[in-house]
């Protein structure tokens, strides 16, 4: 027999590696939603309360970072043509370290405990160091980097900046270090996290997946070659202006103007993406596209509201613009984009691994379910509508926290429960069919 076993998978990790990241992430989403129900308006009234910090990190580390790191271990061989070195070991270490680190950080914030914060700094520091190193080795080994690889490199640099700032802030809160300008560096930290790591990765990956999966024209060449690096340099210049403004207040308005210019770059990306999607030749509207439309549309809308509010402060003085922007970026951009992606990647991996095994063993008696048999449209679409309602109520809760934070929490909890349930159903079906295949192979060998 031709030895085809795992040949096409030799660069990809076993399915258990990405799946454990994907199945853990919704649990953190549920925890975040429960925090909103438990603490109520407190979590939305100040950016600096421990509850707000705990909630934010449950979502950004627990959901976003877990999904993004897990997905990247899986898709780097496909998008960049290169494997992550020691991918199984990396996955085995990074997943528990990030999980424990996130829990420690949340416990540290909520209990005001430096011991938990110290654990968090060590675990998150180790987890991200291993991850960044492994991904960097893979990304910088690519001999002929395309625009997607270039964009991913920029995103990884931004992740490194985000993590270093986060660790030094964490070390300060844990009492290991003196906190210098915590508010200032928190703003730099979250800007690099959202505009750097999340958005640059989105941009780099979109260059490849939007034209290919939705059969659209390519992104304009200048956008592909220049946008990610311009944005990265732009963020670096903004950081210098913003930090220097501590001693030279006259620079403060320059850093604001500069940031607004950078935001125009992101808006341009979003508008071009929406235009390309309108021109798509694949007419089917699937649930992933529905999630992506929400995520991409929220980018220009939230940046425009923030920019107008900042440039004309009297227009919206009742609203905490930064809080609104943060809520938009996390709930309205990052979460739906990843939620949509999970609905493609998890059923596909399940099918791919099983069918590959089937061909390797030539065991044709077992029927491998296709992607929609793994995950019926009605299940994913139901979760989409719950998510959309949750998003609307969460956005409104910024304006009326006393009234709406708890209802928003209930809806978000439901949305993450349905997401977790849907993904778990796929994983269980995978295990079931995998067992059938093993049995059939064993029977075949006996007979």
């Amino acid at each position, binding site marked *: 027999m031709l030895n085809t076993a795992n040949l096409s998978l030799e660069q990809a990790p076993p399915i258990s590696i990405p799946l454990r990241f994907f199945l853990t992430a919704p649990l953190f989403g549920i925890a975040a939603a429960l925090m909103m129900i438990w603490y109520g308006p407190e979590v939305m009234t100040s950016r600096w309360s421990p509850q707000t910090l705990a909630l934010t990190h449950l979502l950004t580390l627990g959901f976003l970072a877990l999904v993004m790191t897990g997905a990247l271990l899986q898709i780097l061989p496909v998008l960049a043509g290169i494997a992550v070195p020691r991918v199984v070991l990396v996955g085995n270490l990074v997943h528990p370290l990030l999980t424990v680190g996130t829990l420690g950080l949340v416990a540290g914030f909520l209990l005001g405990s430096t011991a938990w914060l110290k654990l968090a700094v060590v675990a998150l520091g180790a987890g991200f160091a291993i991850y960044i190193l492994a991904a960097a080795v893979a990304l910088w080994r690519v001999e002929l980097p395309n625009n997607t690889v270039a964009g991913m490199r920029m995103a990884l640099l931004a992740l490194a900046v985000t993590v270093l700032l986060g660790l030094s802030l964490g070390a300060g809160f844990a009492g290991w270090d003196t906190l210098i300008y915590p508010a200032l560096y928190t703003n730099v930290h979250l800007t690099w996290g959202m505009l750097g790591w999340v958005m640059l990765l989105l941009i780099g990956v979109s260059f490849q997946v939007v034209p290919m999966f939705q059969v659209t024209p390519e992104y304009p060449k200048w956008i592909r070659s220049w946008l990610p690096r311009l944005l990265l340099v732009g963020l670096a210049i903004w950081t210098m202006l913003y930090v220097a403004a501590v001693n030279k207040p006259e620079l403060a308005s320059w850093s604001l103007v500069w940031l607004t210019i950078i935001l125009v770059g992101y808006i341009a990306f979003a508008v071009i993406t929406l235009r390309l999607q309108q021109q798509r030749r*694949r007419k089917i509207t699937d649930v992933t596209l529905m999630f992506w439309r929400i995520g991409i549309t929220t980018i220009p809308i939230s940046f425009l509201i923030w920019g107008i509010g900042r440039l004309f402060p009297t227009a919206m003085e009742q609203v905490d613009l930064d809080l609104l922007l943060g809520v938009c970026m996390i709930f309205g951009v990052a979460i739906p984009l990843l939620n949509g992606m999970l609905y493609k990647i998890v059923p*596909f991996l399940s099918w*791919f691994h099983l069918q590959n095994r089937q061909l390797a063993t030539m065991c044709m008696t077992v029927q491998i379910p296709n992607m929609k048999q793994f995950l019926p449209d009605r299940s994913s679409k139901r979760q989409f509508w719950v998510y959309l309602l949750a998003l609307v109520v969460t956005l409104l809760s910024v304006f009326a926290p006393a009234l709406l934070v708890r209802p928003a929490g209930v809806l978000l909890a439901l949305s993450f429960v349905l997401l977790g349930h849907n993904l778990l159903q796929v994983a269980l079906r995978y295990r079931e069919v995998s067992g059938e295949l093993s049995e059939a192979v064993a029977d075949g060998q006996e007979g």
Partner: protein
Amino acid sequence: MARITDTMAGDHRRCDLLFAEAEASVSDSNWDAGTAQFNEFHSAMEHHFSMEEGVLFPTFEEASGMTMGPTQMMRVEHTQMRQLFSDMAQAVEKQDRDAYLGLSETLMMIMQQHNMKEEQMLYPMTDRTFGGGADEVIEKMNAV
């Protein structure tokens, strides 16, 4: 110097368009058009595979000495896609819309990740290996 990459990536895009047309017709339960478009798509894909398996891969393997590397991986994925084609052909025959759309979604995923690997890795490798000889290989593929 990216003759193979450009030529073969262009053929991928042509197949993608045929795929999208067939899927749209089936989604509308327009089986007359859908059947014809699926057959057209299917033969375009088989033609693409023949160019690769009949000319490109063996020529590259001979020139580079790599027989168990990326070309073998691509052949396995061709087999995976061929199984989906045959399931899709059955769905077309039975006019089973849901079955077709579940299979076409699955095919789209494996086809595009396969295309990415080829366009990112394999085709640039062939271009580098063949150098000025790429035109001759393309001529042979055109004769398939």
